[in-house]
C-alpha cells in the first residue's frame, strides 16, 4: 500500500469519526423533538424555546463538522 492510499485510509477514519458524532447529535435532536412535541401537546410551553435553542446548537455543530469534512476533500 502506498502513501496515497494510507492518507485515504486516514481520511476514511476521520469520516467515520465525524459520522458517529453527527449521528449522536441527530439522535439527540430526534429525542428532543419528540419530548418537546409531547410537552407542547400536553400544554407545557415553557420548554419549547430552550429546546429549539438546543436543537439549533446541535445543527450548528453538525454544520461545523460538515464544513470540516468538506475541507478534507480539498
Amino acid at each position, binding site marked *: 500500500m502506498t502513501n496515497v492510499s494510507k492518507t485515504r*485510509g486516514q481520511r*476514511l477514519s476521520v*469520516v467515520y469519526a465525524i459520522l458517529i458524532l453527527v449521528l449522536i447529535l*441527530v439522535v439527540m435532536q430526534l429525542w428532543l423533538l419528540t419530548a418537546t412535541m409531547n410537552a407542547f*401537546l400536553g400544554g407545557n410551553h415553557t420548554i419549547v424555546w430552550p429546546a429549539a435553542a438546543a436543537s439549533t446548537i446541535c*445543527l450548528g455543530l453538525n454544520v461545523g463538522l*460538515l464544513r470540516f469534512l468538506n475541507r478534507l476533500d480539498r
Partner: protein
Amino acid sequence: MDDDVQVTTFPDGRPERVQPKWRQDFPVDLEADEYGARRDFTKLMVITSLAFACGQLWIALLSTFRGRSPKEQRIAAIDEVQIGEAVRFHFPTERDPCLLIRQSEDEFLAYSSLCTHLMCPVRPDVEHGRLHCPCHEGYFDLGTGRPTAGPPRRPLPRIHLRIDRGVVYATDIEERAS
C-alpha cells in the same frame, strides 16, 4: 500501473497486475467508494438535523402564537341540555370541536372531542361514565378526561366553563400532560 503509485486497493490486497482480467478492466476502488458513501451519508444526516431544527422552531412559533387566552364563548342555555346528554360546540376556533356534557342537575363538563391519540372525534357514553374513541378503541374517564384504556396516553383538553343567568360559557382551554 506501477505499484508505487497505485491508488486502487483491490479486495484481496494484491497488486493490479496479478488481478483477473475482468477486475483490471473494471477496477473498483473500495476505499474511495466507502469514503464517498460515508461522506454522502454524513451530508444526508446533516440535512436531517436541519429538518429537526426547523421542526423545533415551528413548534416554538406555534407555541408563541397559540399561547394567547381564547375569547369567552356562549355554548348553550342550561335548558337546551338534558341531564345525561351532550352537546357539540367549537372552541376556541371553528376547527376545534368540543363536547359539553351535563352529568347532573348542576354539573357540567366540557372537553375537546378530539382523541389525543390520532385526533378522531370521541363519542360520549354518559351511561357508563366514559368517552369512547371508535377509531382505535380508546376510552377516557368522563369525570376527569383521563385515558382509561386503548392507545391514548394524554388526557383530553378540558374546557373551563362559566354559568351565568342560565347560559353556559366556555372561558378557557386547559391542555394537560400524561
